[in-house]
């Protein structure tokens, strides 16, 4: 693998070809916030909180670091007035759904996000897709998926698969940055898998 030198927040960083900016930054101890990122999963680029500025061909571009590949001599800025403003807004938008999520609260403190800026719509799920992708990519079970699209999009367990697979797994539960996942499972259980209550083996 070819070694690539780039600059992140003024610091020279060594990376390997094929790495993302996020991976390179983390390897150099530079922190970039993420919500939908997971080391074992393919980059998703959904939450957009890991957004950074890069200098490309003389201009500044805004890109998400979890997807953007490292390039030789690339200049990256992980914080700027604009980046902070975008992150603050993203947090405020997500806090309308999951105001009590610790992951969001911690970031909200750092970026000065107001959890009450938008009217509350307590759906809890912030659509990071960690559960969906973990189940598909790592466990290869597809027991939980997204249904519908746009603002109607939500996670849902597929009863036929969930009844077979989930009881002994539940590895997705700790991945969820909010309480939504467990709630969705409990709901599925109650509605479609009543036998699991009586026979937890």
């Amino acid at each position, binding site marked *: 693998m070819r070694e690539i030198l780039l600059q992140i927040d003024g610091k020279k960083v060594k990376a390997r070809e094929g790495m993302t900016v996020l991976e390179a930054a983390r390897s150099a101890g530079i922190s970039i916030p993420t919500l939908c990122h997971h080391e074992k999963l393919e980059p998703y680029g*959904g939450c957009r909180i890991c957004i950074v500025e890069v200098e490309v061909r003389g201009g500044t571009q805004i890109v998400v670091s979890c997807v953007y590949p490292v390039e030789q001599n690339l200049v990256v800025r992980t914080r700027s007035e604009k980046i902070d403003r975008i992150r603050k807004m993203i947090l405020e938008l997500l806090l309308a759904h999951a105001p009590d999520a610790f992951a969001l609260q911690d970031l909200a403190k750092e970026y000065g996000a107001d959890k009450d800026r938008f009217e509350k719509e307590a759906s809890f799920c912030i*659509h990071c897709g960690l559960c969906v992708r973990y189940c598909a990519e790592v466990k290869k079970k597809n027991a939980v998926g997204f249904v519908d699209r746009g603002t109607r999009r939500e996670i849902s367990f597929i009863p036929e698969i969930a009844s077979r697979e989930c009881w002994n797994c539940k590895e997705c539960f700790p991945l969820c940055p909010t309480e939504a996942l467990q709630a969705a499972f409990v709901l599925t259980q109650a509605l479609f898998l009543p036998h699991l209550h009586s026979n937890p083996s």
Partner: protein
Amino acid sequence: MPRINSPEELEKVRQEILSRRDPSKPCISICAGAGCLASGAGEVIAAFKAEIEKQGLTTEVNTKGTGCPGFCERGPVLVIYPEEICYLQVKPEDVPEIVSQTIKEKKVVDRLLYADPTTGEKATHESDIPFYKNQERNILGSNIKIDPKSIEDYLAIDGYSALSKVLFLMTSEQVLEEVKKSNLRGRGGGGFPAGRKWEGSRNAPDPIKYVIVNADEGDPGAFMDRALLEGNPHSILEGLIIGAYTIGSHEGYVYVRQEYPLAVENVNIAIRQAEEYGFLGRNILGSGFDFTVKVHQGAGAFVCGESTALMTALEGRAGEPRPKYVRSNIVGLWGKPTVLNNVETWANVPLIINKGADWFTQFGTEGSKGTKIFSLVGKITNTGLVEVSMGITLKDIIYKIGGGIPGGKRFKAVQTGGPSGGCIPEKLLDLKVGYDELTKAGSMMGSGGMIVMDEDTCMVDVARYFLNFLIDESCGKCTPCREGMRQMLKILNNIAEGKGREGDIELLEELAEVAVDASLCALGKSAPNPLLSTLRYFRDEYEAHIKEKRCPALSCKELIAYHIDPDKCQACMICLKQCPAEAVIGGKNRIHVIDQEKCTKCGTCFEVCPPRFGAVQKISGEPVPAPIPEDARTIVRKSKEK
């Protein structure tokens, strides 16, 4: 039909087709595009066939259902060759007269000709009608000449000659150079130079490459690609095969939305015919080049018009865009180099090859070459498809071709570029149409939708309409698009309902900025355009809604009231009888009054009040005048006094 195995054989077949055709034999070409079919073209075609048989002319006259020539407003449209007489709004009952007069007697049926709405002057030929006269119909012009289900018709107008030229007289480098020289830019929205896109794929080392026709046209009011795919499918296939040859691809797809059943049908027929004739499949025309095409029907998602979402859907997964910092011409479908171009872009390719890049670049502006098809819709006299040279002004499209605004209303704005485009105000009507020009004005070329709006259109409502469309079509994957639009729409709804607050405009702008900067794909990045462009040019309308609770266009239901002017009301009972909410109080010789409590603001009273009275008014931003006292409502008519 045996396969054609060489350019010589192709020319022989073509000559043979032409020799069977007598150019002086009358041919009745009736538009069988979706628009004309909806206005009864199918019945007209059947009536012609029956009438011609009845009059014993079956061997002397041809009847043909063709592609869409564009003048949908006046459909069903037909052209009679060789005289090229154009009849509009033809009904089955007109058919016997047309056959006995025009076909037999060579006389023109005057009442079916185009008549200028102001001067009343008649136009006999298509080319005399102002709607057509000011167009440059390089691509669309062929539609009325061919039956899209007949490959012979396409061959008769020189079809597949560009393919033959490319395969036998040009190297793939030369084809690429010609396309690059033409500066053909993508007609689907982005405007990326096709030649550069092709070159990237061509140079990519992977031996497996794909070419795709993007026919997932989903903009409200846009139907350019539908008309081409329905009306001249072979021209798109020919362009696609040329593109495949140039980049070294052997497999292609037509991604067409399933809501276009006629386009699906016609392109499938065209593919079967092209395979049979040897324009597709193994060893095309004996050149050694292999290429196959499959049709994939989209499942009804607007976002699948976005290249990465389209490719994801084609791979059999949910059609969501993927984050890309490597272009899909390098890493595309199944990770292979993929050239995806819009229907209209592909349709331009055979013309560029046959007539040359120099011919192509004589049309257009410095940055935007060639012609562009627009679907001209909304508050416009001549609704339809228009093909114009790039660089024409918006004013010429709207007034010279479109015939202006109907009903004596005043022009307000034109929305270009579909739901991701913007609204351009009257003061910019002299703007030349081109990719960069439209982007600079805060809109975009998009795929070519053009929605004209008059003074009755509320710009807040327009922004709300498009956002509503996009919120439904967003895939929901990324936060700025999904959540940002959710909040933007809430604020816009509030403003339109009179619940707007100080600071709403600034919050909208902030949300829009984040959506533009941080969204994953072009849908989210451009979704705020209708909002931002209306804020840019019609900010005062937003302010009137928020501060004065007034809708200047008198359109937002929650901000208007209907009122009957007691001085003008003639107590004719028309509105009283038609009001579905029974909100009009009154009677014979009793001045009518609207009960504001009961009124649902449906506008029926306003529409039915005879214009000579004009008693029903719309009011916004001010209190409704108190109803006149009961004892003053009786009308004493002069005639009765005598």
